[in-house]
């Protein structure tokens, strides 16, 4: 048995070690170095001096209005998109698992946007908002709804939520489909025999048994939403007038725009702590509600 075990460890190492090494090099080490830089005042150019400032960078964070605004925008964006992505994704999933004729085609179509990269999607939608929206607005006269959302400080964020939903809904749909298909047919049948209505079946059987899928989907959208950068960059670029500068972009601008490497790192560390805290709490809460079959 010992011999066999040792052999297994060999195989184990062969497959995990390369991954572990890569992960260490590109994630863990930069992360640790990043924490180190957060205590310095430095412009990011190697040859220039790094001045140790202790906790100052972290203290400045709480009086940095642009950063606080960006935090608020990110929270707003994430809340809105978690709701819309999951509602739309779940609706899609229920639709394509029903006995619809075009279910398979619809499934493919709904998933397609996810396969297009966020950057390209952003540029495509920039065009849609710029040309198609204004055109539709002029054609049907609903100019208060169909105008270029990207040039409005309030609507630009909704445009971002809209495009993010467009991108992610297909992905969480797949998760929900897997969940729905995992529900045993006899449960559904039994409920039918007992005379449950469609609505009752959905609320009393489907949703409770979908809890694991909810956990995964909420976790995914929550952390994706917080970390969003690509769609943000290509769709609005943070504009107009910084009205859609979300967390990740604020950090990027601080480091590369203003050249405050240390301060930007401090922001990034805070960013990490917040994301870790939120997603862990969320996983813990939803895990508790999962139903064992």
């Amino acid at each position, binding site marked *: 048995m010992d011999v066999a075990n040792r052999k297994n460890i060999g195989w184990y190492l062969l497959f995990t070690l390369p991954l572990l090494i890569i992960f260490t090099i590109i994630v863990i080490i930069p992360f640790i170095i990043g924490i180190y830089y957060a205590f310095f005042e430095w412009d990011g150019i190697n*040859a220039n001096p790094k001045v140790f400032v202790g906790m100052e960078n972290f203290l400045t964070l709480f009086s940095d209005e642009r950063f606080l605004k960006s935090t608020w925008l990110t929270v707003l964006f994430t809340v809105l998109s978690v709701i819309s992505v999951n509602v739309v994704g779940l609706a899609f999933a229920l639709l394509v698992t029903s006995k619809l004729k075009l279910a398979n085609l619809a499934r493919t179509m709904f998933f397609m946007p996810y396969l297009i990269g966020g950057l390209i999607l952003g540029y495509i939608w920039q065009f849609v908002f710029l040309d198609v929206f204004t055109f539709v607005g002029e054609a049907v006269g609903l100019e208060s709804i169909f105008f270029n959302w990207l040039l*409005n400080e309030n609507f630009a964020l909704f445009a971002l939520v809209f495009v993010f939903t467009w991108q992610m809904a297909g992905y969480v749909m797949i998760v929900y489909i897997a969940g729905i298909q995992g529900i045993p047919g006899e449960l559904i049948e039994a409920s039918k025999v007992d005379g449950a209505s469609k609505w009752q079946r959905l609320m009393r059987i489907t949703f409770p048994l979908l809890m694991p899928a909810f956990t995964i989907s909420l976790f995914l959208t929550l952390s994706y939403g917080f970390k969003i950068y690509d769609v943000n960059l290509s769709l609005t670029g943070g504009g107009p007038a910084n009205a859609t500068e979300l967390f990740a972009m604020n950090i990027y601008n601080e480091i590369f725009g*203003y050249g405050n490497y240390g301060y930007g790192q401090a922001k990034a560390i805070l960013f990490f702590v917040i994301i870790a805290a939120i997603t862990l709490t969320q996983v813990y809460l939803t895990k508790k509600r999962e139903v064992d079959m």
Partner: protein
Amino acid sequence: MVFKKKFTAGIAFAALMTGLAACSGNEEPATEGDGEEASQQITIFQTKVEISDQLEAAAEAYTEETGVDVEVIGTTGDDYFQQLQIRLNNGTGPSIMSVQNATVAESLTSYLHDLSGEEFVDDIAPDMALTLDEKVVGIPYGVEGFGIVYNKELVNPEDIQDYESFVSTLEKFNAEGINGYGLSSEAYFLIGHMSNYPFSIQEEPVEFMESLTNGEVTMAETEEFLRFGEYMEAIRANTPSPLSTSYDQQVGDFAAGKTAMIHQGNWAWGLLQDFEVDFEVGMAPFPLEGNDKLAVGVGSNWAVNADKEPEEIQAATDFLEWLHTSETGKRIIVEEFKFVPAMTNIEATDLDPLSQAVLEASNSGNTIPWAHNYYPANLVPNDFAPAAEGFFVNEETTGEEFISNLDAAWQNASK
């Protein structure tokens, strides 16, 4: 069982070989470095998108003539400095880079090779070299100028000589359904270049900027800026939003006759040609407070990376010398790059109309300086652009409030 063992050994062997190959791969350049072929390769990473293709061609010509391999790294334009910074930090910095101005040069001090001793540096036109502590660290690309580029069939330059006539011209075009004055959404084309005027027509622009930083004056209490705010209000009221227009569209609409005037520089000629512009084009001064001069300055400078092996620095310097002194090089600068040379040994011939206007202004001294070369680092994309975007999306923001926002932006960038 035997098979399994062989299989494991096979994998281990393969892994070992890859390791060895990687090692030997690292050693190769070192052994080569001892030979005559030493650092016969240089890399160029520069900011000007307009000359990317031409520079590649120049690099090939140079390789043919001298055997030195020149690699041109593609540029993205707006985020050039960030890309450069990343490259310098991770050790893949180019041998030749662009340095936009003195502010940037200061932050890159330790990477800038001192070119003072080179012979061809003496040929740089007076006051055009990029200097740092009295050492020459940058060779100017060329002289560039910007102003109101107008369609001679639609606009009479006499109609845009003061505020009243400028505004009534805009209103006239607006009524005709023509865009009277086109800006575009890129930071420098939206506000960066425009914001020069109130600074440049100060008696001492650089000193004015210093007192601005010290808080001794504000833009909001300076006459020229308030006037500038009024111009911006007139532009916003009479033209479509520049925020939904890109540089390409701006120039394309102009070439198509949909826009009567755009605010651009002589660099836009190449693009105008691509759009096959079929009318006469002129460049007029922006008439802020009676200004009748074009804004002329140096757009960027070639610099040699001091953080390289001496041979590579030498090779890079040689390339710049070739570009600025050899017949081929000089021809490339004038004919291919379409630069208005800032070197006394290069004669400008056959210039396009916009460059001709710039050269004439420059020769007659009828110019105002580029104030934006002295702005705090990255002020334009970081702070001025959002302020201008805010101004253009909120119709109720007045010109005066806009100028106060620029004040706040300046303070934020210079703190």
